[in-house]
């Protein structure tokens, strides 16, 4: 395994080496039934403007009323990212005009966010682990959607998403490589999914990421940053960052200056370009929303949410290593998501954890991949897999036979025990029976016995094979080994 880098690689330019400085602003759609300030539903993919109330469409005289569950979700997320939940927070209006922003302002939290501080521990690919600071988490409304490709001269406006609750989670500019940004985003998404506060589906837009990128020579002051929007997949993050960093380096090295601006990432071209529509949107004229009073949270409210907080991936991973004695890597795999972790724990409960882990990461994951299932919907669930592991553990079948049994389970959907029973696959552990077979094999292969005894040690494997073959693989391999040796040695 390659050595992990203490510091990520720097980019080489004509004027020396450059460091990339990255901060992420993640917009995570809160899992809720209704919108942040109205009773309209938040379903994805509905017919245009069907998920819209008069409040969401900003009709005259319409007023916001805050959704309690969205507050709970934000508090839970704040606790999950090790942040401080503020007992006093407030909603502000962020004023700007856009076709899909019906109120002409977005209700957000500017001066007093619901969560401040926090951090996320990441393990970037090829680099040493790192802690990334979270500046703040605040709650805000989403805008609607503008569709530009339906008509030659018009944009179509769908307000279904308008008013949906978002959490904006802002990191410190702590990241120095695309790998770190990717790891941060993945880890954040994992935590949100564990918490059940955001489904993290970037392709549906329920998690979106704006990347602040700047470059500097190591040790210098922070450079001017650009905000890259529309990075709607984790795999584009690295690409967008590297493109943008190289663009800025080229610009500076050619005597230019980076202008603070909003840029759009184009996944087809793999490049960023300036967003004209956001040109003059700098002066948002934030002020406290007079339609809403300050949000004051009681300790009791926060503690109730803390008490209901699920075990998060890092803690779970450590516990798996400690309680089940499995390798850290396996524990990492098993805690990738809540469902896998639950599956794992169901399988290992009262069983040989290492054996169970090998089966899950080996044949079972191969099966899921091949058949297109996941742990929540596969016909062979945790109990069935556990049944198979039990048969191996109690020596009813050998590991080899188990593979056949597993295939038969996939085929028939039957339990492992039933298949073993039906097909008579019970392992032979009777030493007398095995000795009899050994004797028979030795008698049939007297020449080879002589060769073995004449020094051809390697023939031992041949005899094991013959015994297994004679028992259709049902002989306990360990016993075969144990009994064969003295007999061959004479």
């Amino acid at each position: 395994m390659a050595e992990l880098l203490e510091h990520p690689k720097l980019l080489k330019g004509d004027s020396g080496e450059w460091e990339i400085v990255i901060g992420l602003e993640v917009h995570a759609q809160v899992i809720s039934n209704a919108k942040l300030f109205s009773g309209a539903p938040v379903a994805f993919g509905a017919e245009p403007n069907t998920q819209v109330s008069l409040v969401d469409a900003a009709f005259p005289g319409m007023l916001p009323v805050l959704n309690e569950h969205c507050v709970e979700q934000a508090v839970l997320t704040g606790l999950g990212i090790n942040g401080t939940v503020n007992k006093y927070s407030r909603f502000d209006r962020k004023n700007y005009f856009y076709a899909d922003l019906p109120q002409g302002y977005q209700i957000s939290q500017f001066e007093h966010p619901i969560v401040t501080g926090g951090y996320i521990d990441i393990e970037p690919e090829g680099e040493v682990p790192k802690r990334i600071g979270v500046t703040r988490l605040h709650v805000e409304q989403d805008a609607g959607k503008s569709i530009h490709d339906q008509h030659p001269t018009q944009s179509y406006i769908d307000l279904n998403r308008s008013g949906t609750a978002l959490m904006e989670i802002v990191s410190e500019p702590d990241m120095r490589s695309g790998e770190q940004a990717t790891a941060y985003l993945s880890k954040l998404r994992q935590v949100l999914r564990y918490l059940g506060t955001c489904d993290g589906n970037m392709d549906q837009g329920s998690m979106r990421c704006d990347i602040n990128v700047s470059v500097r020579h190591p040790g210098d002051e922070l450079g001017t940053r650009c905000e890259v929007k529309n990075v709607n997949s984790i795999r584009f993050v690295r690409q967008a960052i590297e493109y943008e960093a190289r663009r800025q380096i080229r610009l500076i090295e050619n005597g230019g200056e980076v202008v603070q601006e909003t840029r759009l990432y184009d996944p087809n071209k793999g490049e960023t370009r300036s967003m004209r529509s956001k040109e003059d949107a700098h002066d948002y004229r934030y002020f406290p929303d007079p339609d809403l009073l300050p949000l004051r949270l009681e300790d009791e409210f926060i503690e109730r949410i803390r008490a209901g907080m699920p075990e998060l991936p890092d803690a779970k991973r450590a516990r798996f290593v400690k309680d089940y004695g499995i390798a850290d890597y396996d524990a990492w795999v098993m805690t990738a998501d809540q469902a896998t972790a639950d599956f794992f724990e169901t399988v290992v409960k009262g069983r040989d954890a290492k054996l169970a882990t090998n089966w899950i990461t080996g044949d079972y994951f191969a099966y899921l991949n091949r058949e297109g299932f996941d742990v929540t919907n596969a016909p062979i669930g945790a109990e069935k897999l556990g049944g198979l592991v039990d048969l191996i553990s109690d020596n009813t079948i050998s590991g080899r036979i188990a593979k056949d049994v597993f295939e038969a389970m996939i085929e028939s959907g039957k339990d492992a025990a039933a298949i073993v029973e039906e097909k008579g696959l019970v392992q032979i552990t009777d030493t007398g029976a095995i000795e009899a077979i050994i004797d028979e094999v030795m008698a049939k292969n007297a020449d080879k016995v002589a060769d073995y005894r004449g020094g051809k040690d390697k023939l031992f494997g041949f005899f094991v094979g013959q015994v297994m073959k004679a028992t259709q693989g049902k002989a306990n391999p360990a016993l075969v080994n144990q009994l064969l040796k003295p007999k061959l040695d004479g």
Partner: protein
Amino acid sequence: MSGLTDLTIAGARAGLDSGDFSARELAQAHIDAMAQHKALNAFITETPERALADADASDARRAKGESAGPMDGVPIAMKDLFCTEGVRSTAGSHILEPFVPPYESTVSGKLKAGGSVMLGKANLDEFAMGSANITSYFGPVTNPWVAGGGDNRQRVPGGSSGGSAAAVAARIAIAATGTDTGGSIRQPASFCGIVGLKPTYGRCSRWGIVAFASSLDQAGPMTRTVEDAATMLQVMAGHDPKDSTSAPYDTPNFAEKLRAGVKGLKIGVPKEYRVDGMPAEIDRIWHQGADWLRAQGADVVEISLPHTKYALPTYYIIAPAEASSNLARYDGVRYGLRVPGKDLKEMYENTRAEGFGAEVKRRIMIGTYVLSAGYYDAYYLKAQKVRSLILRDFTQAFEQVDAILTPTAPSAAFALGEKQDDPVQMYLNDVFTVPASMAGLPAISVPGGLSDEGLPLGLHLIGKPFDEVTLVQVAQALEEAAGFSARPAGY
């Protein structure tokens, strides 16, 4: 049946209950008056058919021995700032000229459910921004009052609820809804010789009322008697879960102490309201009011509200700031006027340039400026802090007194065309009403008498938060003492 248009709510209810006339007859008399006095331009949209249908429904209820409440069958004017389902609601603006709301505001809905008969949508200053009802896209409203002594100049009704005030004063409607942000109920009530009550902020739901300045806007009744104001407020008030700033408190019986008198009550007269250059007739009526209360056994004491003179500048930062944001939704996309442009931005700019009148643009621009980068702290934040001080003044005063007496406005109704060139002069109309608005306090204007020119002058009472009961109690005493019986000639 001209007597029908002279009735109070209480009188109308008595007549309806005893069968002297039907709700339909009552409605028709007012519809006729509305037709007769069209020249006042008190209405933007008249709804006579709706009124007759409402009246018929009321008669049908009475025939079955049912009642929808104390305003069942009472013809009213609805300020065109209230969104009314299926009835065009314009806010007096070109930008909402075609707008027909698919919903009913909470307050108008309560009045509807309470059996009142809607005659039409009353004219107002555009988006309730004005003190003379001259900024309406649908033209100015004329005050039914004219001065005596051969001065026949048309007078403004005050604003922004000018159409409502004129309709009630001219006996077109028995009562009307108003909204008050800095004096928009009380100042026109004073100018038109009627009663206007602005309840405590949070008493009436703002849901469905076109917003001007959210932290100040409050709906209230405009009537010809204090008792009617209490009755109408009873129907309009109440907690509304759809408005986060609606107070979650029980609604008292506002008329509970209507005739309890003022004996033993302490009434404050703030010395800072004696502003430089106050006309003698205003000072006179104010003293008169204090004497009336004293004569009835109240203890009238001088109090101090040190930040009074800063209320108006504070208001002209906070209200425009909120308005600049509240009016951003009028963008030509989802409802109302759209004026085409070569791109989205130009469409916005054309729509809003053509859709808004000068005063609305002025306030949007001021509001945008005071919130903009680099100016927020100096203007908006500062104003919020001064607002705290204004509230503190009142809080301290109310440790001493039960209500505060001031004039409603610094003058009687002025002539149409006056004060129009200088916005700041116009803003000074609200100098006495704005402080209570900043503090969210209930306040009422009651006719106190006539000016030297024969125009009505109002007296203004400010109450403790959510203590409209005492406010009404004192107002009733003033009303009785004043015995105001003058009415505009010809109405």
